[in-house]
């Protein structure tokens, strides 16, 4: 068998052209590129022919020229059904972002907690964590969304009999009602004091680090600073006359007024996504922690580090190197899975731009291209940032 390699390319004349590796490489690449571009050109040609046959055009003008004409049940910015499709899409995008951020926060907290409990020396506790992880990971996320939505809608009482927590938080099947803070003049003084406190803590922390580096004496300056800063902020808060009041929800007629209303769709979607993703995060955290060699713990203890400091200074930094890359892809999955909002009627990007706008304007091509481009841009930018982080964190080897 002749196996031409880079070495034989110098005397290419001695082998036949189809045996010559350089020739073959170029030919294969040209063939593949031609085939792919041929298919793409063929598909685009078909699109043009189909559009011409149906008298359709390709244009994004509908986005700002036509009023959307539909209502959206959760708005982070002002919006009426007379606003443009573009504004509706923006409302949807912000709703996607809200679910993703809150979901990521909840999933991280839950996931780390369960992952650590899974490693507990207590048999019962680690078994419970195991059951939780297996249940969340082996159930479809769409099913979980529908299930939690069903539970909220069907088992929680009507607003009139809403479950009340301390008279200010109410849970009902029409939504969760929580008090919202109302900011009054004088609040900015509290903010200023708080920021000054933060700065002070940072300076004290640096001072402590320097002193430790210079003399080897460790003193919890940052802890003192934090205590002082909290005390100062609380003092400032009352000195300024408690300039934040709570707007509590109250039952008026058939529903609650005041405060913030979390619609059931938002609660169900966020909670289901966090619940589902937390199982994956828990497994990441667990495998990250056990990936750190046991000798590291032994060595740290032999050097006289306490158990807490061993965890904080030796185990966690090494575990994070293993945990973070899959953690990011869990976050990305959560963001992409939030598109399942459409199944329960939460108006996210897919439900607005890719749902109602698509059916109302009949512009499948434009809307779907736009939706995919937005998701792609978010995904790629996050994974790009992740790659940079990974490169900086990578173990430097010989």
């Amino acid at each position, binding site marked *: *068998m002749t*196996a031409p*390699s880079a070495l034989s390319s110098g005397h290419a004349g001695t082998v036949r052209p189809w045996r010559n590796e350089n020739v073959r*490489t170029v030919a*294969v*690449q040209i063939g*593949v*590129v031609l085939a*792919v571009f041929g298919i793409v050109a063929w*598909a685009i040609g*078909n*699109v043009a*022919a*189909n*559009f011409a*046959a149906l008298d359709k055009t390709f244009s994004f003008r509908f986005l700002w020229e036509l009023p959307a004409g539909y209502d959206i049940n959760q708005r982070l910015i002002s919006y009426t059904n007379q606003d443009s499709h573009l504004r509706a899409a923006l409302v949807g995008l912000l709703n996607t972002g809200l679910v993703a951020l809150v979901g990521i926060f909840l999933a991280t907290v839950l996931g780390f907690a369960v992952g650590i409990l899974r490693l*507990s*020396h*207590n*048999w*019962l*506790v680690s078994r*419970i964590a195991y059951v939780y992880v*297996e*249940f969340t*990971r*082996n*159930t*479809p*996320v*769409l*099913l*979980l969304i*529908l*299930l939690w*939505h*069903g*539970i909220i*809608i*069907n*088992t929680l009482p009507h607003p009139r009999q809403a479950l009340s927590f301390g008279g200010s938080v109410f849970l009902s099947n029409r939504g969760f009602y929580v008090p919202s803070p109302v900011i009054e003049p004088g609040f900015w003084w509290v903010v200023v004091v708080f920021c000054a406190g933060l700065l002070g803590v940072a300076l004290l922390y640096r001072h402590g680090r320097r002193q430790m580096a210079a003399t080897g004496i460790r003193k919890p300056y940052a802890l003192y600073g934090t205590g002082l800063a909290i005390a100062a902020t609380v003092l400032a808060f009352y000195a300024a006359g408690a300039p934040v009041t709570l707007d509590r929800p109250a039952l008026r007629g058939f529903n609650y007024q005041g405060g913030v209303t979390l619609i059931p769709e938002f609660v169900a979607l966020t909670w289901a996504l966090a619940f589902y993703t937390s199982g994956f995060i828990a497994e990441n955290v667990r495998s990250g922690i*056990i*990936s750190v060699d*046991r000798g590291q713990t032994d060595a740290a203890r032999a050097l006289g580090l306490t158990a807490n400091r061993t965890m904080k200074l030796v185990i966690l930094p090494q575990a994070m190197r293993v945990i973070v890359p899959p953690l990011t892809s869990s976050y990305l999955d959560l963001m*992409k899975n939030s*598109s*399942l909002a*459409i199944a329960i009627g939460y108006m996210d990007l*897919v439900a607005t731009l*890719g749902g109602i706008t*698509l059916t109302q304007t009949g512009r*499948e*091509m434009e809307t*779907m291209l736009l*939706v*995919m481009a937005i*998701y*792609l841009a978010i*995904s*790629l930018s996050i994974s790009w940032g992740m790659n940079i982080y990974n490169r900086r964190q990578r173990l430097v080897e010989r």
Partner: protein
Amino acid sequence: MTAHPPPSRSYPPGEHPDLPPPPATTGIPGWLRANLFSSPFNSLMTVLAVWLIYLFVDAAGGWMIFDSVLHADSRVACQAIDSGACWAVVTTRLDQFVYGFYPAAERWRPNLAFALLLAALVPVLFSAVPMRRALLWCAAAYPFVAAWLIHGGFGLPVVETGRYGGFMLTLIIGVTGISASLPLGILLALGRQSKLLALRILSTAFIEFSRGVPLITLLFVASTMLNYFLPPGTSFDLLVRVLIMVSLFAAAYLAEAVRGGLQAIPRGQYEAAEALGLSRWTTTRRIILPQALKIAIPGMVNVFVGLYKDSTLVVIIGLLDPLGIARAVLADAKWNGLATETYLFVALFFFLSCFAISRYSLWLERRLATGHQRASMP
């Protein structure tokens, strides 16, 4: 273990016979002490955990089992019988949950296809099967036989794809997706690692695109606009379009799992193969892929489980998978408001099958481990 030595005797250093371990460290008390009550904090955790389990069993056990109703005609009838879960919503429509609207007279066909699936899986999953090579070829023919059985033609009456549904549809999407995405994913992974620039760029672009967008947008493309990309007047079945999209989507994720395996193969393997005079294709097929796929098994199984779970997304474009049936049932005024029961039933099905797949993958991983992995963890 020797018997108790007489207490009074003295022994020279190093000659003392082994004593039995203290009673509190062995048997059930020892286990309880080591695993549940090793410290005050640990004991507190145990008490908390037991309390949590009690709360759960107290609330869910009664509702799910003891106070539940298995057979009734409607929700109202259920509530008249007992206060717990109304499983009648599932039992009265069990046929639909399994087959969708597949004609009752033809249901022996999916049943047979399912039995054949189990038979075809045996040589794929277990290596200690006699005549495995020949059986593997039969297994490779399985998707085509099953397609013929379920769809019909060549002597069998044709059943339109619109009538497929329930768990049968989940299995159709799962099996097709897995068998189509496996070769495609391996090719994409090889393409992404290729020395040929054009192949590399095209594979990478495809993988990154598919992984960057949610599956639901691709399903929308399949249902609303795939026909625009075909010559005017052509149109093909929605289920086939969905199967193509799901397979392409899974192939991109699979390619990333396989790439992880490829990257773990040391350079020396390639160099040794080249030194032996193996061609590049033989090297890939005989040396690299067998090792890389072995490393990639956990990742690949994760992709398969994900694909299987994601098959539920087809409900959003109107196919009647178990969730589609569930929604149709819940829209019936007789069963209104029983979402919890219905979805829990579907969840149980998915949990059992996904859990079985992941257990199998763990078993396979252990069996294929040939001693290169790191020392076992504490």
